[in-house]
């Protein structure tokens, strides 16, 4: 099949622009599965990726949850890392110099425990030239308001996005939680509040039990479900969101290979993120990029945009 279209020898254009960030291809890691970029350099060249997305950062260092923090489920994993991170200062001091050595745009994922914290982190990040854009994780509870998760309520989502927008000139990607009744309502709210792009989905809340001990497998009781198990839910939500908003959508959830990534592009994602699969195969993203390119060649496409949103109904 590959050779049948050999005539088309020109390599297809895979570059995309998301929220004003130019990427050489639409493939990047999902936050929290690629550390701060450095951890995977023995296995792949960061310059080959569309972008690098960091572990979620907060204003101050965050310790994270007690152990155990991860457990395997059928075709998925649950994690309750608890957003452990070095904090914004250490990130700027220790990680940014390394990341600046690559051509690949750096997207910083961040969160806050209150509205104010979100605003402060945004302001800090705005000053760092090495950062191409930010990804706002709104799957966190607002500790000051009874712990309601920002991303599950359109008003709260809108409020936090507006605030961040007001403190930030950089491209703003908002990452949505799938644990909602209607993701299009949240998507519309964050678009109106000034998001430049939407990333979905974050993990589905799940739980697993160690039957012998009768204890939850995770110290935190519940955790976030990721991996191939959740892909159908992610594809559905990306489809719904892409139908709803005008800003670009980044698809994430259960991508392991190029075919998986293509599902997201076809339903309208402009780019994709690979998460759990990095753990299974540290070069997974490279295979995804190569596979997308090969698919374009096989199908006689010279630009990835012919593929994006090409769903046939």
């Amino acid at each position, binding site marked *: 099949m590959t050779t049948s279209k050999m005539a088309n020898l020109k390599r297809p254009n895979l570059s995309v622009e998301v929220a004003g960030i130019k990427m050489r291809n639409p493939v990047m890691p999902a936050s*929290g*599965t*690629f*550390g701060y970029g450095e*951890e*995977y*350099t*023995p*296995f792949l*060249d960061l*310059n080959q990726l569309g972008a690098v997305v960091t*572990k979620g950062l907060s204003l101050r260092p965050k*310790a*994270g949850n*007690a*152990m*155990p*923090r*991860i*457990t*395997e489920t059928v*075709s*998925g*994993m649950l*994690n309750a*890392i608890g957003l*452990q991170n070095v904090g914004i200062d250490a990130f700027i001091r220790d990680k940014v110099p390394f990341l600046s*050595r*690559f*051509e690949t745009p750096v997207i910083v994922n961040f969160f806050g425990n209150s509205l104010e914290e979100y605003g402060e982190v945004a302001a800090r990040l705005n000053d760092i030239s090495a950062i191409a854009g930010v990804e706002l994780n709104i799957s966190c509870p607002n500790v000051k308001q009874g712990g309601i998760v920002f991303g599950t309520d359109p008003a709260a989502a809108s409020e936090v996005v507006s605030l961040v927008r007001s403190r930030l000139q950089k491209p703003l990607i908002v990452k949505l939680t799938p644990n909602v009744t209607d993701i299009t309502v949240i998507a519309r709210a964050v678009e109106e509040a000034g998001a430049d792009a939407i990333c979905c989905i974050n993990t589905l809340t799940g739980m697993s039990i*160690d039957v012998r*001990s009768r204890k939850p497998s995770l*110290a935190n009781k519940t955790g976030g479900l990721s*991996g*191939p198990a959740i892909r159908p839910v992610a594809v559905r939500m990306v489809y719904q969101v892409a139908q709803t908003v005008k800003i670009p959508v980044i698809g994430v959830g259960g991508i*392991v290979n190029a075919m998986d990534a293509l599902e997201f592009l076809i339903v309208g994602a402009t780019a994709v993120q690979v998460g*759990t699969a*990095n*753990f*299974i*195969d*540290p*070069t997974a993203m490279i295979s995804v990029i190569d596979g997308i390119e090969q698919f374009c060649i096989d199908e006689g496409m010279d630009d990835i945009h012919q593929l994006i949103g090409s769903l046939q109904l």
Partner: protein
Amino acid sequence: MSVNRTELLKEKGEQMQNYNTIILSNQEVSPGYFRMRILAPGFGAKARSGQFLMFRVQHLLLPLLRRPFGIFRVGLLPPDCEGMPPKEYVEILYKVVGGGTRIMSELHHGDHVELLGPLGNGFTSGAVKKVKILVGGGIGLVPLYMLASELVTQSPVRLLMGGRTRDDILAVTEFERLGVETYVSTDDGSLGEEGMVTEALKRKLVRFPDAEVYACGPMPMLKAVRDICYKRGVSLQVSLEAHMACGVGACLGCVVKGAAHTEETPQYLCCCKAGPVFMAETLDWGKIDTDDKSCGGCA
């Protein structure tokens, strides 16, 4: 502006690599325990004792995550035909405890597998000539073999090996062949002395009060060993286990509490990156909450 990857790796001294390789052999050596030799050219030259690897059981996504295993030893096999270079292998020794290890136990010579390694920080050799006491509990003996083979060249080495029954006592003759004096104890007395390996340790430390201790095994054993060494001011290195997803410090799933840990200013260390071998004094023993179930263990 941009950096070259080869230079970068040199600069950082990174040794780990993903091997797409095959199994050379996979044999049950004691009920429920298997030894697997995996072809891994170049692996041996990089590996240090106490390091581990992440093993991908099948190309299918089942199990989903890789499984961490200590490096039991590295070695060479004669080539298949004359004139060819010998085959470099890495050997792991594992216990069937769940779904992943069960599938592993059914793999054969020639089956395709992937491994990521060598990973983590290994043991440090300690003072030349000082007596070294290695304490192994069950499958916890795995990282001690390569350690012993490094230590015997410069110091007297003793192995204290404990297990539930005789079936849990592995590879003892191989340690002896290295010139290591070994003492075995089992919970049921079915091999060696009946009782806990920690009792043997106390006795040894009376004879060799300035020995250096290295231990790997289930967490209750490690805690007991640590208490014994702590009280006597004896140097101790321990190899820990934790549930791992990435093995390279990216997921933060495998942390243990450091000595400086408090509720207010937590100190979490990645078992895969800062460990799996730690100097005992760098850890918070009061509250280390490495999940007991997950220890290789005698059980």
